């Protein structure tokens, strides 16, 4: 166990996995120097047979990942900001998500796509999107949204070692945060939510960047005598539907918190699952605390109005419980 920063752990994990398996390669724009710090030092360690700075051509980067993976490599593709996934979206949606089925299972695609996501730094609309809803809808893609350094390590190892295209979305705005990380080599299985705080009054389901305000809300609520259970999905595809429903069965009340825009968000999907599989346990409406259906504004005050925070979560819970 050691306290480490989120981005530092991702960096160490990438290096460990590249040491472990010579078939792991990595490329992207300016990965050699590293914008976010996650790919620092890889060039020095592994040289230009394992890591490449690419030109700016996202449409090709995503397509190449498919080709290189189909031809036997474990590809790590760094797409920098999540909005640039849209630029490379064709091969994600039309090839990466579909090739295995279209070829009748002839091919495995061990691809890990890294991208930072989320708002809060006044990067404005083209650098602040939360992209997982569109990825979740495509089918055939796994999506991880680690919130803690320990999960970042375990989920990234699982992503790289797995045989499916996996989006590993970094909560960049939280890259500097510290957390305890086990020293040993471990993978964290996808599809198992983690309960960060137990409680019997209400379930707060969340993921990625929203875990921090959700946990803060959990603390604020417990000071008011409301025991919230805070559930971190950790991965969105697969989603721990049973784990979420189990918590709702305990509490009967649920608020889903998501940094995605509301329409067709992860929150909406989770709410739909609960309204189906968890319906009989529900004692109140399923509430969503999400980003409204707007582009992210630049001005800090406007941005903060749009991004969910602990206060909004807390007041939603209070209203839900009638307290």
């Amino acid at each position: 166990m050691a306290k480490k920063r989120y981005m530092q752990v991702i960096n160490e994990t990438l290096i460990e996995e590249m040491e472990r398996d010579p078939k792991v390669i990595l490329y992207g724009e300016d990965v050699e120097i590293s914008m976010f710090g996650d790919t620092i030092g890889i060039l020095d360690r592994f040289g230009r047979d394992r890591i490449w700075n690419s030109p700016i051509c996202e449409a090709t980067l995503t397509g190449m990942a498919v080709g290189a993976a189909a031809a036997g490599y474990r590809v790590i593709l760094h797409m920098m900001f999540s909005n640039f996934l849209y630029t490379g979206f064709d091969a994600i949606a039309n090839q990466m998500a579909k090739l295995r089925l279209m070829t009748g299972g002839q091919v495995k695609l061990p691809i890990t796509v890294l991208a930072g996501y989320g708002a809060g730094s006044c990067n404005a609309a083209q650098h602040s999107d939360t992209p997982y809803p569109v990825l979740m809808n495509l089918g055939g893609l796994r999506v991880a949204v680690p919130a803690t350094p320990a999960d970042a390590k375990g989920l990234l190892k699982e992503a790289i070692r797995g045989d499916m295209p996996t989006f590993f979305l970094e909560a960049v705005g939280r890259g500097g945060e510290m957390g305890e990380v086990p020293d040993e080599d471990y993978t964290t299985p996808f599809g198992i939510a983690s309960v960060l705080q137990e409680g019997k009054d209400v379930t707060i389901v969340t993921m990625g960047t929203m875990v921090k305000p959700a946990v803060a809300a959990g603390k604020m609520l417990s000071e008011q005598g409301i025991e919230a259970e805070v559930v971190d999905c950790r991965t969105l595809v697969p989603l721990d539907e049973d784990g979420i429903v189990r918590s709702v069965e305990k509490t009967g009340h649920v608020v889903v918190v998501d940094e995605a825009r509301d329409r067709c968000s992860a929150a909406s999907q989770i709410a739909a699952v609960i309204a189906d599989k968890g319906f009989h346990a529900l004692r109140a409406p399923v509430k969503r605390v999400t980003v409204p259906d707007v582009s992210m504004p630049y001005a800090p005050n406007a941005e903060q109005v749009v991004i969910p925070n602990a206060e909004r979560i807390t007041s939603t819970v209070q209203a839900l419980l009638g307290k």
Partner: protein
Amino acid sequence: MTSANDKNIPTARQLLDMYERMLLIRRVEKQLSEDFKAGQLPGAVHLYVGQEAVAVGMCEQLDDSDWITGTHRGHGHYLAKGGDPKPMLAEIYGRANGICRGMGGSMHVADFSKGIVGANGIVGGGLAITAGAALAAKLDGKNQVAVCFFGDGAANQGVFMETLNVSTLWKLPMIFMCEHNTYSEFSPTDTVTAGELPDRARAFGIPSTVVDGNDVTEVWKAAGAAVDRARSGKGPSFIEARTYRIHGHIEAEVHFLTGTYREEEEIEHWRQRDPIDRLRAQLLSSGVADEAALAEIDSGIQETVAAAEQYAQTGEPADEKLVFDLMSVGQI
């Protein structure tokens, strides 16, 4: 692999091999055209009739370990690279014994064991995939090459320029095999394409040639030079093969088009330059084969096609569960 000496003229064996492959493609597709008309195919087919020399001339220079990607018009690429007609037809019939187990259909025929990464329904979709396969080939260090077949229409997709750039920078063993068949869907190429395509590749310093795509020897020569260059680590090449699709863009077009987009004379002009007829004439006049030998090849092919047709039509329906197995994300 061909040695330096072989490069200028294919051997008799190679010529016959190419003849056979071209004729196989032709007969398979003529069969598919009939099948389509008879309402036997569940989906649509884009036929390669008239373009056979391109795929065959190129693939004659390749081994099973080399990679190719095809297009929506992909049966010819698959068969030229040594793909088995039986499971291809079964695939187009949507059967369990199809090469993709009925999951892909005509636009997705693939056989990884033969280096056939597959046809593609997205115009230009194969370019970046090929660059990725070429990167893998380079890292493998076993002198493989990766060839992308793509149309003149696909050459207007930005990913074409992007892959020209990255393949040059990274010296990828990649070959851009552009099939200029005079149409981009229903648009005459010059109405949607400015300048000459080889100039686009030349802007990156990539060796670029234009060949008569209906002359299989010409294609074979240009392919040989490109393959040699790629295998020797010198990077990508671009070939534009001028050719023509004799059939419509898609077999179903007669049902949905209200206007016409080309003249009968134009089609006839190209029929006169049929690549198979030309090779046949060459084989006969050069004495590589006589009528009897060619007839024997043909009857062999006809048997192959009949057997494939039989295989396809008697195949079981696709296994529906497979959809879920293959798309599983390990949901707990």
